[in-house]
Structure formats: structure tokens, C-alpha cells
């Protein structure tokens, strides 16, 4: 009874937060952001290249050649996208955009937090127990009230652990 009341309260709180976020969207310039991200990535990697890839050969073709070429292609193509988008913005032409629903992103972030928690728990709890905890939390995330779903998740965690350990001979944490 006590548990049910608390679950109902938690459910009501989730509903309230969900309602607040429902319909809230954010528009981002997908091409612009994507191009900037890849420019930053390629410049960063090109800058780090001398310290990360030591050249031991004497010729022009060495361990740096291929990654350098790839980073330069990424940089040039990203710059091309960036220029195209900037010109579009200046000419006030429609740009490539994506609409991001905040509620969907909060859901994705929650799942990501659950992944990280699962990873953190792997060593102290071991694979099977951390999998059970994750499975229960993930089922709760789906706001399931049916107890059998929780039992299926728990049984699956034990079975998968046993399968990898005893059938595939993987030494799980």
C-alpha cells in the first residue's frame, strides 16, 4: 500500500514534468552545427597529429599520410557545407533545420544515464546483479505497472549472464 502510494506520487510527478516539456521544441541549423562540429574535430585531430603519430620512415608516405588525407577531406567538405549555409543565411534563404522535441531529448538523456549507471555498477555488483538493477530501472522508465514485465526482465538478466558465462565461456565481471 505504502509502495503503491509512493509509486502513484512518483508517477504524478513524472506526468507533471512531462506536461511541462510536452510540445516544447528547439530548432537547430543541422548542417551548420554538423559542419562546425566536424571542422572542430578535424582541426583538433590535425593539431594533435604530430604528438599522436610519430613518423619513423624517411619517405613521403608514412603513418600520417592516410589519416591526414581523411581529416583534410572532412575539413574541406565541412567548410563547403558551412559556406553554403552562411550564404543561405545572408541571402535569407531557407536553411536545413531539424526540430528537436525537448521531451524526446530528456528521454534519451535518461536512458543514457541508465547506461552509465549500469556500467558503473558492473564492477561492484557483478554482471548479473547490475543487469537485474538495470532491467528493473529500464522497465520502470517505461512506466510499466505489470509485475510480470519486471520478472521477465530479471529472469532475462540471469539467463543472459548464464548463457555468456557457461555456454560461451565469457568471464563476465
Amino acid at each position, binding site marked *: 500500500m505504502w509502495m503503491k502510494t509512493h509509486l502513484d506520487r512518483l508517477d504524478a510527478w513524472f506526468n507533471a514534468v512531462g506536461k511541462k516539456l510536452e510540445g516544447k521544441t528547439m530548432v537547430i541549423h543541422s548542417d551548420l552545427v554538423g559542419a562546425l562540429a566536424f571542422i572542430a574535430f578535424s582541426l583538433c585531430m590535425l593539431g594533435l597529429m604530430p604528438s599522436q*603519430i610519430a613518423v619513423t620512415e624517411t619517405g613521403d*608516405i608514412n603513418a600520417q599520410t592516410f*589519416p591526414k588525407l*581523411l581529416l583534410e*577531406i572532412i575539413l574541406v567538405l565541412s567548410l563547403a557545407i558551412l559556406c553554403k549555409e552562411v550564404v543561405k543565411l545572408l541571402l535569407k534563404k531557407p536553411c536545413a533545420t531539424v526540430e528537436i522535441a525537448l521531451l524526446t531529448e530528456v528521454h534519451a538523456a535518461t536512458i543514457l544515464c541508465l547506461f552509465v549507471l549500469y556500467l558503473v555498477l558492473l564492477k561492484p555488483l557483478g554482471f548479473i546483479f547490475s543487469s537485474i538493477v538495470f532491467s528493473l530501472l529500464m522497465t520502470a522508465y517505461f512506466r510499466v505497472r505489470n509485475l510480470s514485465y519486471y520478472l521477465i526482465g530479471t529472469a532475462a538478466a540471469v539467463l*543472459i549472464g548464464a548463457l555468456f558465462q557457461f555456454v560461451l565461456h565469457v568471464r563476465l565481471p
Partner: protein
Amino acid sequence: MEYLSGGLALLFHWSNFIWMNIGLLIGIIFGAIPGLTVILAIVLFLPFTYTLGPIQSFMFLLGIYCAGGYGGSISAILIHTPGTPHATATMLDGYPLCKRGLARKAMNIALQASTFGGVISAFSLLFFAPQVAKLAQTMGTPEYFLVCLFGLTIIAGVSGKSLVKGIIAGCFGLFVSTVGIDPMTGCTRYIFDNINLYSGFDLVICLIGLFALSEVLRKDKRSEQAKVGAIATGSGKITKKEYKRMALPAILASVIGVIIGIIPGTGASMASFFSYNVARNISKHPEEFGNGSIEGIAAAETANNAVTGATLIPLLTMGIPGDGCVAIMLGALMINGLTPGPNLFKDHGAVMYAIMVGLLFVNLFMFIQGKYLTSLFARVINVPLAVLTPIIVIFCFAGAFSVNSSTFDIGTTIVFSVIAYVLTCLDFPTIPILLGLVLGDLTEENFRRSLILSDGNWDIFASSPVCIVFLTLLVGSLGIIIYGKWREARKGEA
């Protein structure tokens, strides 16, 4: 002939057939449930092949791959939601038939057409692959580099809205594959003094993040699942007249499927829509298309399964995967010491013939499973995602850990899932990243060797007739892709 008899001896072992049937069962289930994909199934179950031999592994994965194509049609017909993207063409006519109470007939046509396409595809693999392998043996390093470049460019071009974004994604995948020890010089690249990065990023770990965990991140808990009731009554029997009507579209679709399958990066969706369109153009009843045409279902399903064997031709003969699923299978081959390429048929001829003949049996067993377990598969669609999602994640974590027995790899998987999630939000395709990862070593090795041979002269990439043929193909394909995108953009503006 010697290889064929050796291959048959290797294939006819009970364990190969058991693994083949387990794969088929998994493939149909994953194909049937909307939200689960064939690529996800292959990624999740790839760790299971570590302890298996090459033929068992390949039979298992081929079972998943081929059956996934058929599985997608079940939900497309029953709930108007294609389980796989290439079942969309099947849905156009399958669902109207289902609404008329002819679901069983639609599913029978889909099953028989899928089997027909699969068998034709297996025969094409059996006859064409050894010939292509002979041709590939004459290729040198520059030709090989151009083949890799061709595959990567086509995939970059067709897997997203933008060719430029596809190329960026492909280059990103190639770049990630360079992390770790350089196989040619032994020096380390971008390892940031982290011992876990010495051997680079393992393909399976990246795949689990890019295609499995990222899908889970995208699962919105509010997404509703359609429910399937009992399959409508009726025997689902196909009459002689109906077989006659479907014969020509099915034969044409199988040829189209095989041709499209051989071209890297094209895939089953393109084959099924193209064949569907051809079937409509040659039909005496074009008005039935979209309203429950049996020819439409037959053409779409034949084509998407005719692709399966054909995609293996460039994989087994040159090491160039025809699509994303086959790219993952490449990992299973390499784990067993079989490096795809022209020498594979010379060094492991019997194993290759066992795999190719095995594909025929995969399709026959798919027919048997589909015929007798259809009602069960239809009920599987009702399994809630709330039950499936935690199970998928636990599988992913166990699979990622099993590669090197390291929790660092699980962290890497999570990072790759976030990368895939963000890139998808920004409209960057992820399939070229996969191809970049798979083809990274092969591309770099042939690129560098070619330039070393020519003292850094780039003319080597146009030095032979084969090089010129591939360059022409590359430029021609790029031209077609760019023209297609330009037309799409103009249509959008209009």
C-alpha cells in the same frame, strides 16, 4: 568440382543445420517486430559466433540475414508497419489484402516469393562468385584501392540525403579505423597513452554502439505499438491462375534483385521498390497496385530476398560488403581466419562452396519455418518494447564485454551510441561510418602500397585498363547520384 564436393562434405553436418535454423528463427522474429532491425540482430548475436566454426557462424548469420527480409513482411502485411525498411513495398499491397481478410494468402505469397528470390540469389552466388574471384586475382593494389573507394562512395551517396554528408561520415569511419597500431610501420596512432587503444577500436564494439545502443537511445517510451489479432481465416491457397500472374514479375524481380545486390551500397529497399515499379508497368491490372495486388507483393518480396546472395559476391571475392548487414558478417569471417578477397577461393575453396550451397538450404528452411510457424511469428509482433529493450541492452553490454573482457569496451560502445545519436539528429548517415570501419585497413593498405610503389605519384591510380574502368564507374555513379539529388532538391523546391 573438387571444392564443391569438399564443400558439401563440410556442410552436411547436423550442427550447421541447427545453427542455420536458430538464425532463421531469430531473423524472422527481429524482422517481424517493428523497431528491431536485422542489422541489430546480427550485431547482438555476432559474439555467439566467436566459439563457432566458420560454416556454423556463417549459416547462423545468413539465417538471420535472409529470414529478416521475410520477417519484415509479416508486420507490413498484418499491422501496416514494415518490420524492415525494404518491406515497405510489400506493405502497399499486403495490408489491403489483409483488410479484405486475405492476410494468410498475402503472407503465403510473401513467403514463397522470398524463397524463390533467395534460391535464385544463392544460385547466382554459386555461379558468379568464383568467376568474379578469378577476375579479382588479376587486380593489383591501385585497382583494389579504387574498388574500396567505389564501394564507399556509392554507399555514402545513397545512404543519406546528402552526398557530401555521406562522404564526411565515410571518412570519419575510415579515420576511426586508423586508431591504434599502424599495421605497416608498427607506430601508434591517436591512442592518447591509453593501453586499451593499442589494438584500435574493435569493429563489433563500434557496431554495438552505432546500431544497437543508439537505437535504444531513440526509443521514445510514448511510442505506441500496433497490436495483431488472430490472422484472418481462410486457407491462403494460391491458385494456378494466380501463380501464372505472378511468374513474370517474380522472375524479373529476381534478376533485378541480383543485379542491384552485386552493386555495393544499393540494398534490398532499392531492389524491392524498383521491382515493384517494373511489375506495375508490365501488369495487365495496374489499377490493383496499392489496393492488394498479388503481383506487387510477389515482385517486392522476390527482389528483397534476391539481393541476399548477390551482396555476398563482392564480399567474398573482393572483401567489399554489399550492404551494412553483410559488412558485419565480414567480421565473422575474419574471426575464423578467412580474409575475404580473391585468394579466399584459392585458399579456402571448400569452405566457400559450403557457405554458398548452405545459402540454398537457408532459403529452403526459411520456407519450412515460415509455412509452419506463421501464426507464432504474427503473435511475436505483440511483444511489448518495454520487455525487449532491457534485454537488448543487457545483450549489448555482455557482447561488448566478451570481445576483450574489458569494461573499457562497454564505455566505448556507449560513446559510439552517443555519436550515432547526435549524427542522426544532424542528418548524417551512419551506414558510411560502418563501411569506413570495415574497409579502413584494406583501403589504407592498398592506398599506401600503391603510392610507395609509384614514389608518391598519383597517376598510378589511372595506370591500368581496370583502374580506368573503375574510375569511369566511380565518376559515372557519382554523376548519377548528384543528378538524382539535384532532381530531388528541385522537386522539393517546386
